[in-house]
């Protein structure tokens, strides 16, 4: 035990006395994540504001006489050009394609007359056609706005003209106040958003932390020839392995906490209110213990996965190559939870390492993790991690692995 304690102390001292390492492992990634999300958020809101502020260029062909009146009523702002039916629209559709012009609206010829002369079923109904470019943000917004404000209002006013009392057509209302009708468990609703995102983030962050640190602390030491001096001390190889794994676990957890906090802060900037929902999540003490237990076994598993690769690799470069497939595996396991339906999964799914960590965390966040599922998850993760530890200890005892002999 003394040996393990000594090694942990040394490993932690090593990291925390190296300013460059502290910056590159903890501070820089955290700051970068925050900055990245903040910039993304800033750009998105700028884009939205820009679209809102843009005054669209609209061409209207065959506009009925009273149409200008409607445009005034809704106070539609846009550079509007009216075209006669004889004018060619080719140059305008061309402009829409290029993004110079935002919208072309074409009324059928004799629009008003056709409406006036409508008598019974089968009589002609005139059409308004809009031409826009959905890949252009301005054009897309212009079409939406024009339809919703101008054309809808025009339609309503013509309906009123035809029937006098427009309420006769309404017959009944559907949800005059939609928000009042939402019945939801606030904690579960916010859990749902986070349940999709958080397991993925935590998995990735944990593995990333373990990856950077593990390769330096094991392959790096092997490469620098400093591991051999530890192998010469009168302690068991398993003590060295546990000392390394525990210190890696501590550092990995720390970096995961920093990364996750940065992501959460960053996302808050990104989407404004979305993570305000987080305040609604309430954990019971049992859930907190469950989450904690799961995080610990996950850290243990990831650290031992990386350590096993790191101990076999001869150089850090080699270790980097070997660890990439594992990284992809972890990503895959956690991405799968992002796109799975809420359907109840059988208990056997909770025995699949990596994947089970993500789905169990997802269940926990929406309050649906049963004790059985929790038990199977933690048990299978711990079992795999323990098997890996045995393999690592064996590698530490192998002269071929340690001394390339």
């Amino acid at each position, binding site marked *: 035990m003394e040996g393990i304690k*000594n090694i942990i102390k040394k490993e932690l001292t090593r990291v925390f006395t190296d300013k460059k390492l502290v910056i590159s492992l903890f501070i820089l990634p955290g700051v970068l994540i925050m900055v990245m999300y903040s910039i993304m958020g800033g750009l998105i809101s700028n884009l939205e504001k820009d679209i809102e502020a843009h005054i669209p260029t609209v061409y209207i062909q065959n506009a009925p006489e009273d149409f200008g009146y409607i445009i005034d009523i809704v106070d539609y702002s846009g550079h509007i050009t009216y075209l006669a039916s004889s004018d060619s629209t080719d140059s305008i559709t061309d402009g829409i394609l290029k993004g110079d012009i935002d919208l072309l609206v074409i009324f059928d010829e004799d629009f008003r007359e056709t409406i006036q002369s409508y008598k019974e079923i089968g009589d002609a109904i005139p059409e308004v056609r809009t031409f826009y470019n959905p890949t252009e943000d301005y054009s897309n917004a212009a079409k939406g706005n024009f339809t919703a404000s101008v054309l809808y209002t025009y339609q309503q006013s013509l309906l009123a003209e035809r029937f006098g009392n427009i309420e006769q057509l309404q017959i009944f209302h559907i949800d005059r106040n939609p928000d009042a009708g939402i019945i939801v468990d606030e904690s579960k609703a916010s859990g749902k958003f986070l349940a999709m995102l958080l397991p993925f983030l935590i998995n990735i962050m944990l593995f990333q932390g373990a990856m950077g640190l593990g390769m330096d602390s094991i392959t790096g*030491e092997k490469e*620098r020839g400093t591991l051999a*001096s530890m192998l010469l*001390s009168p302690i068991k190889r398993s003590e060295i392995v546990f000392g390394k794994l525990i210190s890696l676990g501590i550092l990995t957890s720390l970096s995961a906490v920093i990364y996750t906090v940065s992501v959460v802060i960053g996302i808050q900037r990104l989407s404004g209110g979305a993570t305000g929902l987080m305040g609604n999540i309430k954990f019971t003490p049992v859930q907190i213990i469950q989450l904690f237990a799961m995080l610990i076994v996950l850290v243990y598993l990831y650290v031992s996965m990386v350590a096993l690769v790191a101990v076999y690799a001869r150089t850090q470069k080699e270790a980097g190559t070997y660890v990439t497939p594992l990284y992809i595996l972890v990503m895959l396991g956690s991405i799968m939870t992002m796109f799975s339906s809420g359907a109840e999964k059988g208990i056997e799914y909770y025995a699949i390492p990596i994947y089970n960590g993500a789905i169990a965390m997802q269940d926990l966040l929406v309050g649906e993790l049963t004790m059985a599922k929790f038990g199977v998850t933690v048990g299978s993760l711990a079992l795999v991690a323990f098997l890996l530890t045995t393999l690592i200890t064996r590698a530490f005892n192998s002269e071929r692995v340690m001394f390339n002999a």
Partner: protein
Amino acid sequence: MIQINDLTKVYKLTKKQMTEQKTKKNMMKAVDKLSLRAKPGEIYGLLGPNGAGKTTVLRCIATLLKPTQGDITVKGYDTVKDSENVRKTIGFLTNEIKLDPQFSPRYMFGFFGRLHGLNEEAIDKRREELFDYFGIKDFEDKKIDELSSGMKQKASLAVSLVHNPEVIIFDEPTNGLDIITARNVTDYLKLLRNEGKTVIISTHIMTEAEKLCDRIGIIINGILVTEGSLAEILEKTDSKDLEDAFFELFKIYNKEEE
């Protein structure tokens, strides 16, 4: 005391190593039925050209490698069955085993002292002695990364002796050292011998072996071809000095191998 009985060490070669060494055999015998005994109060020198198997022998004694055949005991402890006790007894130094460059000699000394089960008081006392002897005090708090190679060697030396081992194993002790540091090291080895410790070193430098070693074993292609004091070896080979003696033996045994 170190007792080696019929030590044979065979390395399995990977395909890559086979092409590198231009051999079709997937096994390489680094040491072949080697037996020797190094006694307390003497410096035993393993002399041989590069690749003769000196380092392999020393690493087997230090429990880093396991013998393919034969056995080794250090102070009565078997290097395979009782490796932890062997490691308590020995101090092992080689150029390939280094101290973590991120730490100071002072920290490393304490770290390895604790791994050897020493308490802080014992570590402080021992550090005072060794750092004073090797002149490490001036740079004991500097990062090892910032030290010159001579300083690094001194620090490694002091750290490997933190637990005051009874058996000292040195692989090429003066390799890469300047003349003053080298003299410092060899003087210290003599001091250890005079204190009654068992010292075994490997070297390919004839003069070092002549001046330093009480007994010399010449190793060629993994075989211990002769053993004895300098005078005995010179007499056996009818040579004027160790270099002549070595080449006499080399002519005979290197041919046999082919």
